[in-house]
């Protein structure tokens, strides 16, 4: 590690190419914290959006009509408004109606912080798309399959969990991958509500060290790697789940 730090310090001294995050411990640690926070934000939102998608797609098949209408309204609302406005809505709008609590220093702080609101609104944003994706996957399942499950005594929930969802998931994985990639890119919007994720800490670092091009380069590479890793993992999963004869 010492060698790397020394080399980047040397690079700065000789060429002026200033990657502070590799030799300055303070910048390094806050950048790393930002990176972990982006990972956390992405992981929580991905899991949250999948849960929303699975639950929503199930609710869309309910016999109770008002529930179906509510899910439909939710999908329309979150699909057709900018995610930035959604985050603002939760962070400024909803947060104002919640009580504030005292933290360990005796200062009052909102009950739900920026990170939690970012996770919630990103999960709901991507979840709305996930419901549509799961639903279109379910459309591909022949009615006879569901009738067969019914005739074997499966309830609607059991049919969904054991028959419909496993088949639909395999069909809709490519579309799901697209949406999750989009979600990881959208986590940068948490910047707007002061969540110290990658873009936010990078902004702090380049404000202090005046090294915008270098930090931009690092940011681009990290998001490329993150998205690349996600796509790779999803493709592996797709291959692993593959059932001969199903889908294309």
């Amino acid at each position, binding site marked *: 590690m010492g060698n790397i730090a020394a080399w980047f310090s040397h690079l700065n001294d000789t060429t002026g190419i200033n990657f502070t995050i590799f030799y300055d411990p303070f910048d390094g640690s806050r950048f790393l914290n930002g990176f972990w926070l982006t990972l956390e934000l992405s992981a929580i939102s991905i899991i949250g959006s999948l849960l929303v998608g699975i639950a929503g797609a199930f609710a869309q098949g309910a016999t109770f009509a008002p529930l179906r209408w509510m899910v439909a309204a939710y999908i*329309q609302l979150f699909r057709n408004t900018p995610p930035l406005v959604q985050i603002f809505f939760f962070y400024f709008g909803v947060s104002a109606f919640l009580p504030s609590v005292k933290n360990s220093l005796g200062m009052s702080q909102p009950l739900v912080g920026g990170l939690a609101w970012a996770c919630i609104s990103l999960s709901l944003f991507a979840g709305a798309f996930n419901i549509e994706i799961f639903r279109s996957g379910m459309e*591909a399942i022949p009615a006879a399959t569901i009738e067969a499950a019914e005739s074997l005594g499966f309830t609607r929930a059991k049919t969904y969990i054991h028959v419909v969802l496993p088949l639909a998931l395999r*069909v809709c994985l490519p*579309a799901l991958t697209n949406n999750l990639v989009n979600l990881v890119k959208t986590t*940068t919007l948490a910047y707007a509500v002061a969540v110290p994720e990658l873009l936010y800490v990078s902004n702090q670092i380049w404000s202090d060290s005046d090294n915008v091009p270098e930090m931009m380069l690092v940011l681009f590479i990290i*998001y490329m790697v993150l998205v690349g890793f996600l796509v790779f993992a999803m493709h592996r999963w797709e291959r692993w789940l593959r059932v001969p004869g199903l889908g294309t």
Partner: protein
Amino acid sequence: MRVFLELPPTLHRASTGSLPALRLAPWHGAAILLIILATPLYGYAAGGPAPSSALAVLVRWTPLLLRGFGLNILISFMSMAIGTLLGAGLGIALISERIALRATAWSITQFFRNAPWLILLFFMMYLLPYSLHLGGLTLALPDWLKAVIGLALPVMANIAEILRGAVQSIPPSQWEAAESLGFTRSQQLWLIIIPQGFRRMIPPWMNLYAILTTSTTLASIVGVNEVVTLAGQVLGAEGGGPDLLAPLYGYVLLLFFIYTYPISWATRWLERRNAS
């Protein structure tokens, strides 16, 4: 047991582009209008200021907000024009027969499709100079123009993908037939394939434009005086009360709805017409 399943058409479309499709219905506009009208009434019932004051604020600031919205539209127009021109070139390179050219175009496309739009905006904000000196000519680069360039880049990559997808959706027999008639490669592309693929490019192109229009609000984060920034300033000037928050931002949403709904409707109409 072997199960044979057909992919539904929605998935075929979704897997060609990473961008979500904007699907607006008339009742969305009605719902937004209800928010604008109902929240001041609710606030009045809860002991707030008279409902007419919130609407009066909206009316008073409409000229300013519309000017801000005009900037959003200008940004979207210019980004789309620049992005389409560059993207068409990039898309042609994506289907080139020369491997080196194809690989370069592919990496550029992947880069700009996978980079977050907000980071591209920041990139342009910080790295473009304040003015360009071309010979003796000095060209000022205001923030909104930098935002145009920042938004044009992801548009370019998506256009390239749309073009490639449309060309690939043309049956290979068309290429073969054109070749057997003695057309050169570029003649095959320009006279046979592109005219057929063009019709399929229009709906995703319009959807991309609708998405781009809503994405112009990102420019408010980097300090461009577009409609969301101005709405925040109006809120500040009027005392920043939470009772004005919903009507004001609802009003901004309504502006975007009025603009994007016809585009969304026309996109669906074209898709339906092409499908049949």
